């Protein structure tokens, strides 16, 4: 468990470039801030001669990227005996080599020889690889003793991102580039370019888009290194609307591609500027903030549809739609762009989101399925659904806790019903849990432990732990004021506890 906590802590800090408060980390891990401090101390103590997590009073914790890389390099001991790898690890290795160097052809022996496995095992590997590649519109070709991957550059990179990349930027570097010197240099170059993008856009690239962009640039560089040139998809971007719509992003992209050309001493295809543009436009970079009026109509409709669908579920009816709308719309705008351009984002919090909000996740998943059908969009995967769920989860948590009232009259059938109708009409924030006969109050309170207040039209002889209020069935103005005061008093008392 401690190892998992340490791993999660490092993963979280890897995605953040500035200091993160102890409180935020404790929330994320579900442990106390003291435990966070203890974990950081243990992590640092395990390093040879350096600190990988820096701490500063009042600011929190930050990962020392350089030290972390150094430690990862030292600890990167892969199994020396390839025959010890599992079939999944073996296919992963073969896939990585084929994808990174596609369309380079390999003799079967070059790929599988070192694993010392039977022909039937190789045959199973080929079948498995073909199946995986087919999902990315790629084919595994075999002529005689030679195999290679055929497909477009975009599809190859999508496959690399999806099949091989994790959101740990350090391991992205490790798996793609075995020469650690080059690996570190490439990573540093990309970090520099990302900072440049942020400077030019006057905005931080938030997680997970930072990982997404890093991965995109890393794969671009490594593919170029491996292949020497990039497969020409035949794509020729027109004077696109996108550049006109986002001239600022277009300028940034041209600058980054120029830098890449210099760095690689190459002339990257024009389409790379376009792809980079898609990535940036699909990231949530506010660039000084978007006012509600600037949200396009399609984004508004899509966002409203989602909120309406989720609020169909009685449990989520109380969500404050207006509050949720602006935040979610800002997320949906780049999401629609990602869907349009087939850009996928990784969500390393997905399992945690599913675990913490299982019901909400399912409701959101149903809503996004309906959304795709309704608006003719590409299917929205679980990773994206997870991000959307977080917005709803926040809205759910912001929702005021319902105030539960149990209504009592002599029979439970008469004035309690009258009162119910009047209270529902005049006090929408009160939730009536039941209407009961005075003689049944004790067992009913046991059955409804959520009750905050008992409102009765008949005097109650017994004493109950739950506060009570006697009103007339007329629910006079005076009764209403007393009820309001009582609710307020209980809420305040509740808040103090």
């Amino acid at each position, binding site marked *: 468990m401690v190892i998992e906590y340490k791993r999660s802590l490092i993963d979280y800090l890897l995605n953040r470039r500035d200091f993160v408060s102890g409180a935020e980390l404790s929330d994320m891990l579900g442990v106390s801030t003291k435990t966070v401090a203890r974990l950081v101390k243990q992590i640092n103590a395990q390093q040879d001669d350096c600190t990988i997590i820096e701490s500063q009073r009042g600011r929190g914790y930050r990962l020392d990227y350089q030290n972390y890389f150094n430690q990862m390099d030292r600890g990167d001991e892969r199994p020396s005996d390839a025959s010890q790898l599992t079939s999944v690890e073996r296919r992963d290795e073969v896939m990585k080599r084929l994808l990174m160097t596609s369309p380079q052809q390999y003799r079967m022996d070059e790929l599988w020889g070192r694993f010392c496995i039977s022909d039937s095992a190789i045959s199973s590997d080929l079948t498995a690889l073909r199946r995986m590649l087919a999902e990315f519109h790629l084919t595994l070709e075999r002529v005689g003793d030679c195999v290679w991957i055929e497909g477009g550059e975009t599809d190859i990179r999508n496959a690399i991102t999806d099949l091989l990349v994790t959101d740990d930027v350090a391991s992205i570097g490790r798996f793609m580039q075995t020469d650690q010197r080059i690996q570190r240099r490439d990573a540093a170059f990309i970090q520099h370019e990302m900072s440049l993008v942020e400077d030019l856009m006057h905005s931080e690239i938030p997680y997970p888009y930072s990982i997404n962009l890093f991965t995109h640039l890393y794969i671009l560089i490594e593919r170029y290194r491996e292949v020497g040139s990039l497969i020409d998809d035949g794509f020729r971007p027109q004077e696109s609307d996108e550049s006109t719509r986002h001239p600022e992003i277009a300028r940034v992209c041209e600058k980054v591609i120029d830098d890449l050309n210099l760095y690689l001493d190459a002339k990257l295809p024009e389409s790379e500027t376009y792809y980079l543009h898609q990535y940036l436009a699909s990231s949530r970079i506010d660039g000084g903030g978007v006012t509600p009026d600037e949200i396009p109509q399609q984004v508004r409709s899509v966002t409203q549809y989602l909120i309406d669908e989720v609020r169909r579920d009685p449990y989520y009816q109380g969500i404050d739609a207006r509050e949720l709308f602006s935040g979610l719309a800002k997320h949906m705008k780049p999401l629609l762009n990602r869907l349009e351009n087939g850009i996928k984002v990784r969500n390393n919090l997905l399992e945690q989101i599913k675990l913490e909000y299982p019901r909400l996740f399912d409701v959101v998943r149903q809503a996004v399925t309906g959304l795709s059908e309704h608006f003719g969009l590409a299917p929205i995967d679980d990773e994206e659904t997870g991000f959307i769920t977080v917005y709803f989860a926040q809205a759910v948590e912001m929702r005021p806790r319902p105030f539960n009232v149990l209504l009592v009259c*002599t*029979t439970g059938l008469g*004035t309690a*019903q009258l009162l119910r109708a009047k209270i529902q009409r005049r006090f929408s924030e009160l939730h009536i849990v039941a209407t009961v006969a005075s003689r049944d109050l004790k067992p009913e309170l046991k059955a409804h432990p959520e009750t905050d207040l008992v409102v009765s039209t*008949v005097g109650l002889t017994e004493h109950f732990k739950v506060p009570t209020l006697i009103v007339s069935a007329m629910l006079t103005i005076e009764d209403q004021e007393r009820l309001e005061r009582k609710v307020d008093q209980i809420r305040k008392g509740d808040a103090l506890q």
Partner: protein
Amino acid sequence: MRCFVEWEPGSGIDIVDKAGLLMWVASYADRRGVTADGRRLARVLEDRENAGDTRLAIGLANPHAQDRVVNSATLLFVKLLRPLADWRPGDCIDRFLFTLLPERVAFNEAARIKAFYRLIANETAMNVLRVGDQEEIQSILPTERE
């Protein structure tokens, strides 16, 4: 469920106070077979009044009882000729919606009673009970009238 409307009853008896009305109701319920023990019913009604105000509106009270002596669920609306000054201090009440229920109320009857009480939460329906004439009162009571 049984429903009765009695408009200015008491020919020969002048109902002038709370005790007089409860005695009249006890005797009426006995006669109609609503209860086998009118005296006890009157006591139960009085106990309930002592436990808290049963008024539904100015001039309209809702005395009620749920007890083993009640044979069947009954709504009895009584409009008096002269309002009672001692029913509730500070209010003169001339209209009474008696609700008499047995220990166990059949599911469908309970549903009808609930629906009726929710209906009179509506101001228009409540106004009928407060100031409506005999016919209007009969029109909003939930079931067969006698």
